[in-house]
């Protein structure tokens, strides 16, 4: 297991390197710079600004400087839009809301999805199964940017149970997390149902039944471990989806998170902030995927030898 983790960690180094390099040069070669929108920038001011950010250096030197700062000090530089703030500060400021949103959504997705899926598989071809399965299909087909506004319309504007936007009290967290979580709850429910149905037909389940194990023990102790495999491999893409999905959710519910900040920074051509956020997201997604992979191997030792 340790060797497996070590190998995967080594693999991430070139991947991260490629992402940083690709984003760095993409950002540099785009038409329009970060100081184009400033009103009446005189050439002198412009030159000063460029010197301040080191943009007057040759490109390869900018690149190596950036890489050095990121790798050695974890320093992502200064925002080109908000001159007084560093990217690290902005991220520290905005990331918590996004992490909370993502974590809550994932929790909702897992709890709702697993229970609906297990229930549907155990009560196969009954009304409960059809109900759970249609819930899953509905969740998959109604995109977050339709569901979110509808939930706001019904629960915030008409019923007044929640506020339509903001991120202050715990009530503010419910609608956004639910909106983002439901899509993945639906996916997880479908996969759980399929996985459980496959496992429940296997011989070792029959053996467990024959030995007189209780039904709940069979489901939760014996079947779930095998039935969960497809769900675990779905978690990787789901996590990436939740992170990027938060861009839209944070826009709809006006949450002061990193997702909204990232989209704005791209519009503002805030070079350093874009770069910093992309690096952060990449590290986050790769790390979470690694955890998912480890869990997968733990659940299914056969994978270790591949």
């Amino acid at each position: 297991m340790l060797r497996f983790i070590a190998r995967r960690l080594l693999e991430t180094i070139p991947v991260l390197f490629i992402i940083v390099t690709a984003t760095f040069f993409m950002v540099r070669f785009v038409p329009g710079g970060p100081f184009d929108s400033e009103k009446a920038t005189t050439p002198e001011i412009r030159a000063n600004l460029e010197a301040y950010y080191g943009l007057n250096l040759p490109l390869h030197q900018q690149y190596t400087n950036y890489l050095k700062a990121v790798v050695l000090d974890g320093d992502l530089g200064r925002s080109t839009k908000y001159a007084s703030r560093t990217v690290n500060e902005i991220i520290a400021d905005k990331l918590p809301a996004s992490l909370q949103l993502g974590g809550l959504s994932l929790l909702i997705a897992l709890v709702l999805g697993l229970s609906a899926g297990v229930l549907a598989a155990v009560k196969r071809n009954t009304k409960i199964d059809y109900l759970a399965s249609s819930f899953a299909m509905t969740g998959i087909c109604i995109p977050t940017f339709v569901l979110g506004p509808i939930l706001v319309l019904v629960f915030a504007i008409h019923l007044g149970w929640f506020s339509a936007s903001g991120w202050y009290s715990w009530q503010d967290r419910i609608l956004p997390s639910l909106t983002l979580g439901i899509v993945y709850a639906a996916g997880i429910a479908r996969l759980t149902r399929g996985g459980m149905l496959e496992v429940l037909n296997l011989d070792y389940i029959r053996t467990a039944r024959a030995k007189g194990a209780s039904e709940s023990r069979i489901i939760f102790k014996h079947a779930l471990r095998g039935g969960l495999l497809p769900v675990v491999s779905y978690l990787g893409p789901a996590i990436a989806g939740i992170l990027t999905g938060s861009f839209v959710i944070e826009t709809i519910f006006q949450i002061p998170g990193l997702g909204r900040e990232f989209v704005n920074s791209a519009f503002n051509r805030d070079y350093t902030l874009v770069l910093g956020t992309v690096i952060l997201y990449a590290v986050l997604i790769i790390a979470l995927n690694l955890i998912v992979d480890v869990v997968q191997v733990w659940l299914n030792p056969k994978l270790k030898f591949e």
Partner: protein
Amino acid sequence: MTSLSPKNLPSADLAPAQLERGVSPWLDAWRRLRRNHLAVFGGVTLIILSLLCVIGPWFSPYGYQETNLANTFSPPSAAHWLGTDQLGRDLFTRLMFGGRISLMVGLVATFVALTIGVIYGAISGYVGGKIDRVMMRIVDILYALPFTIFVILLMVFFGRNIVLLFVAIGAVEWLTMARIVRSQIMSLKRMEFIEAARSLGLGTPRIIFRHMIPNILGPIIVYTTLTIPGVMLLEAFLSFLGLGVQPPMSSWGVLIKDGAERMEEYPCLLLFPGTVFSLTLFSLNFLGDGLRDALDVRAAKD
């Protein structure tokens, strides 16, 4: 297996007249598909929606940019079937025009994804060995990347033109297709007719495209159908962020965005485009699932 397949027939003591005629696998699949009500519903809905979007605008008395400030936020009526928006534009007409763009993005970007995915997967599966391992490792890694982020960057930085949108979305959505094609090609590779083709001295491209691809059309069709909703979702997602299709052009994503901004005054502006869009995704998913069952494509998990 259905009763139609010849090997289920007790062949010995049947009179020739009682023997059913052999049925091609495609016809067989078609019959199975027709018995799946949800898939038929999906297919019919899609045909109706596409016809409406393609032909409908010609019969509409309104232009999709035609404003009428005397008649804003009007509820559904005989003159305006789905009402009008904040500028008095006819929502039904706008939905049909937006649908043209959404469906076109869905088809074209899927075609881009299909082309990349099939070629990449076929090469990886056919060549095998070290090259295959490297190519699939790349796919694994790409799967884990925040690709939507790069699409967003591309759209912001390089202007929001529709051709770039096709390419960007297509470049993201080809991964699953590549995996599926690869695993299918790998299992075909060991079959005798491929060996025969190889021993006849046929070139690799000819073997792949003339002899192998036609044999895996089933899975390709199924996953193409299932890719379209993903592509349409991504387009609408980008349009919702203001990065996709730009005004005065519109797509369902743009209409949903506009509707969400005005929903307090007039909820129908959100509900109608949202419903049509969700209905399309529903239909595509049901049709794809139905095709998968009908063509007996194993769910490719690896």
